[in-house]
């Protein structure tokens, strides 16, 4: 049980790290939003599933309820976070920000 929880948490941390590196390293606004939207969602999803499993260590109805609430957080973040990223990209396109192309300088 603990091994599975640790696997989930470390996988989540791995994706969080990838997201942070991506936000720092990618060249422009749109590509930076890509790790911010995708990797953070997946990292949060994995680590929260890990926490929900860890919470079931001492099985009881209350613990099951708490785990269900954590899973609900996952569901809503899974819906809301990519939509928020999409909205930001949409606003950038509408404001007329041109995407970066190969050979250009980092912005």
């Amino acid at each position, binding site marked *: 049980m603990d091994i599975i929880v640790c696997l989930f948490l470390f996988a989540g941390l791995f994706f969080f790290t990838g997201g942070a590196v991506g936000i720092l390293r990618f060249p422009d606004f749109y590509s930076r939003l890509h790790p911010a939207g995708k990797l953070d969602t997946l990292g949060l999803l994995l680590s929260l599933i890990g926490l929900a499993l860890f919470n079931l260590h001492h099985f009881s109805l209350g613990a099951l309820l708490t785990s269900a609430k954590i899973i609900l957080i996952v569901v*809503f973040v899974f819906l*809301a976070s990519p939509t928020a990223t999409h909205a930001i990209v949409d606003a950038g396109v509408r404001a007329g920000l041109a995407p970066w192309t190969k050979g250009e300088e980092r912005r």
Partner: protein
Amino acid sequence: MKITGLIVTILVGGLLIYAAADFPAWSDPNSPASTYLSPHFIEKTMEETSVPNIVTAVLADYRSFDTMFETTVIFSAGVAVFILLRTFRRKEPEARHYRHVLTGVTMRIKEGKLPPSDDFERIDTLWTPPDLIIKTVCRLLIPFIQIFGLYVIAHGHHSPGGGFQGGVILGASIIVLAISHNLRTVVKRMSEKLDAVLCAVGVLIYAGTGALCLLLGLNFMDYSALASVLFVDPIMARSHGILIVEIGVGIAVMCTMVWIYSNVSSRGRYEQGL
């Protein structure tokens, strides 16, 4: 001028630090706060008000006078934004734009206007179609956000929460609707007049509960007087009284949020919004 400001800052800051040195140390068991008042709240809250959450009991019962005026502050913030920003243009713009909802055909009418109908919606010259993904996800999420807001208001007795937090969540759900569609969509469902009236009604529920206690023969805001109205014993009445004022706070906060947002986002013109 800058030097005067610096001197004043240093003087006042020094005075504050000097005064703070006289405070009792953190978590000093012999300080006045933890010898007299805190033990009373910690030990007696449950038997006096039958509310497990001490914070809620202190906020809405023991210090309800303070909270009533906090609600009034929020109400006056809404009124202040309204007075500062709202513009009533005496002259209507000559041309009005309408969009047929089903086909998306827009038309411009030079004079006069269409009778209100569900087929046509009025739009502004800056109108852009709302994004389908954002629109769908917001429509999916808003009911859950609102249920969660109601839960936070109603569950303030047992867990962190209460009128202010729940009201903000409810207000945010309506602001999400305004962002994902446009401000006209919100105003169609929740008019400016309703906003303003509900703001005042929220404060009135709070103050009215207090005044009702006064009428029933006890002190202002002593909810145990409500026992004869609610048909429960005085201790339960205090618990129910807290719920009633929390609902009032929730209504006031929600409508103030929406009111401030619609004035700020449309520069007081109630048109397109952001």
